[in-house]
């Protein structure tokens, strides 16, 4: 299979399993782009996706400006204020876990004055990585890992820009590519020249013709063909990192491995646009595109949202809930997770809010025993054996589940969708994955403590030996002295 991209040919490789678009919840076309008004309060959770707690750098009652640093952590990019106002409290929300930083906005939206020169006169990899970190950029595709961690490795051969939306209902990346293709392309060129990357592929799904046209127009307009636009078959989950890499390069990222080991770096298009904003516009990551969709709201939108905006404000902007609304899900219909409250804010990893209507949510039949039909194996895009994983995780057989690469499950929900026995496989895998991660962490801690305990025993043995040696040397010295005395007396 070949696709024409400006004279060069990019061969596409056999696509992974997964589901065809017909088997998925219906997409509603491209909802319009809009900017909701400034909310009264902005909320920033201090606990991040990997369990780290950001350390606040502002005091309650302190006035802050838009773009000012709010909280930071040595292992996680910082969080900045997305508008000006006053820090209200460092309080816990009743429904959320952990502390929040709340800003009461003053409506003036005053930006902070930066001392940085942008774009920097000299752009070395180190300076760029530093700027990306300082701008608080994490992956905007959903996982929310620090972007510098991916770019930090030496010898990047190919940069893959992920414009293939993983979720069938999410369209924020498509909106970005249709409306702001220049930001994505300029961000990519920054990375290409600074890190000296040979090749750059921007992948979009084949049925997204609007993005294709907009990107090609932008490439033609700039006259810079360093970024190749590639169409991949629209098959869920096309936007999964490992699945996309396999479709584009034919290379399989091993279980437990990283694309960096293969000389590849895969970034979401929104992340690259954020890098562009940070370098060219001197703007930290304080806003992002979020898709609001589902039959539970009156008007679906792709909203350009300030981070920290409560989801209820966005729903209000979309005309409020319809009478049908039954579920509030963050992340979309396939891979999302239900939200406890619409008072929770938009974070860096919020890309889609789906308000499911009663006609959209399929009533799942009662769970039946597994009949070992193997349909889940056929659809699993990660190449796993879901029915075996289910059997072992259900029986608590950790070693077997680990040997079958439980950790490689991307929780895409394909197996759930096809299971004729309506077994909630993904829910089981999520629990098992969490337990496995906890067990591994405990195991690491135990090994560490063991090493230190043994080191202490060795140290004590050394100390005792040294003490004995010095005691022996003292005794010998006395005996020597006595012997010398005796010989002197004998001679005298």
């Amino acid at each position: 299979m070949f696709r024409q991209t400006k004279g060069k040919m990019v061969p596409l490789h056999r696509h992974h399993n997964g589901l065809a678009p017909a088997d998925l919840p219906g997409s509603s076309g491209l909802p319009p782009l809009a900017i909701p008004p400034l909310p009264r309060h902005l909320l920033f959770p201090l606990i991040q996706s990997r369990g780290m707690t950001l350390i606040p750098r502002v005091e309650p009652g302190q006035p802050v400006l838009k773009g000012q640093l709010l909280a930071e952590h040595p292992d996680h990019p910082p969080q900045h204020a997305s508008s000006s106002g006053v820090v209200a409290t460092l309080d816990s929300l009743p429904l959320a876990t952990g502390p929040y930083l709340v800003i009461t906005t003053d409506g003036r939206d005053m930006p902070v004055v930066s001392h940085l020169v942008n774009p920097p006169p000299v752009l070395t990899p180190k300076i760029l990585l530093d700027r990306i970190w300082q701008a608080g950029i994490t992956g905007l595709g959903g996982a929310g890992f620090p972007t510098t961690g991916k770019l930090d490795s030496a010898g990047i051969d190919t940069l893959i820009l992920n414009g293939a939306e993983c979720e069938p209902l999410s369209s924020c990346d498509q909106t970005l590519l249709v409306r702001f293709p220049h930001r994505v392309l300029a961000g990519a060129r920054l990375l290409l020249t600074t890190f000296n990357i040979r090749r750059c592929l921007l992948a979009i799904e084949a049925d997204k013709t609007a993005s294709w046209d907009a990107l090609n127009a932008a490439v033609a307009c700039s006259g810079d063909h360093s970024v190749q636009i590639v169409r991949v078959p629209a098959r869920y989950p096309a936007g999964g990192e490992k699945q996309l890499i396999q479709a584009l390069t034919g290379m399989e990222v091993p279980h437990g491995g990283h694309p960096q080991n293969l000389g590849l770096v895969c970034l979401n298009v929104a992340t690259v646009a954020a890098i562009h904003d940070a370098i060219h516009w001197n703007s930290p990551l304080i806003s992002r595109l979020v898709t609001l969709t589902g039959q539970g709201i009156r008007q679906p939108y792709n909203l350009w949202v300030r981070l920290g905006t409560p989801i209820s404000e966005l729903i209000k902007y979309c005309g409020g809930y319809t009478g049908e609304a039954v579920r509030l899900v963050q992340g979309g219909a396939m891979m999302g997770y239900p939200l406890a409250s619409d008072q929770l804010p938009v974070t860096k990893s919020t890309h889609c809010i789906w308000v499911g209507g009663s006609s959209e949510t399929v009533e799942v039949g009662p769970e039946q025993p597994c009949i070992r039909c193997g349909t889940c194996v056929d659809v699993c895009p990660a190449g796993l054996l879901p029915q075996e994983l289910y059997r072992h995780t259900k029986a608590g057989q950790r070693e077997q589940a680990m040997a079958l690469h439980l950790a490689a499950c991307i929780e895409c929900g394909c197996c759930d969708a096809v299971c004729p026995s309506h077994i909630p496989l993904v829910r089981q895998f999520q629990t098992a994955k969490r337990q496995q991660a906890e067990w591994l962490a405990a195991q690491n801690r135990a090994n560490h403590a063991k090493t230190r305990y043994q080191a202490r025993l060795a140290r004590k043995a050394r100390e005792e030996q040294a003490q004995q040696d010095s005691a022996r040397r003292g005794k010998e010295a006395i005996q020597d002295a006595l012997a010398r005395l005796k010989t002197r007396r004998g001679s005298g």
Partner: protein
Amino acid sequence: MLFTLSLLFLLAFVSGVVLDLLTRYLPQSTDTLVERIDAVLPQIQCAQCGYPGCRPYARAIAANEADINRCPPGGQDTVEALARLLGADSKPLDLHRATAMTGGVAVIDEARCIGCTLCIQACPVDAIVGASRYMHTVIATECTGCELCVAPCPVDCIVMQAPSQSGRI
């Protein structure tokens, strides 16, 4: 017939000699059972089993000197794992030596520390830094939460805190 038999005997003899030599001269791994038991134990080094650490307890189990149900931090899960490993019957956790452990991290009230080094000597994993008549502090990431440092402190300036409060990830 005779030839076949003698060949068989010869083969058996030669392999016997070779095996005997191998067992004599190859390095022996007598500790594998101890290692495997040690791997199951939680490595808190709290000494609640009556032995000075997890490895001495593992050695005692391997030598059949100690029961498998004497590890309170490991809980019933560790008893089950040990029972599976040793092919023994599981039994309820023996708690009569146990102290109530919080599973937290030790924190020294640095203003009250007099620098006596008693806690440093008690710590089984060298997680406390300090010197005589200087303030001591606990390295939170290294602390196993064994609480062995709490009792020796003459001014009672060590308390156990939940891990999240003290900054351990």
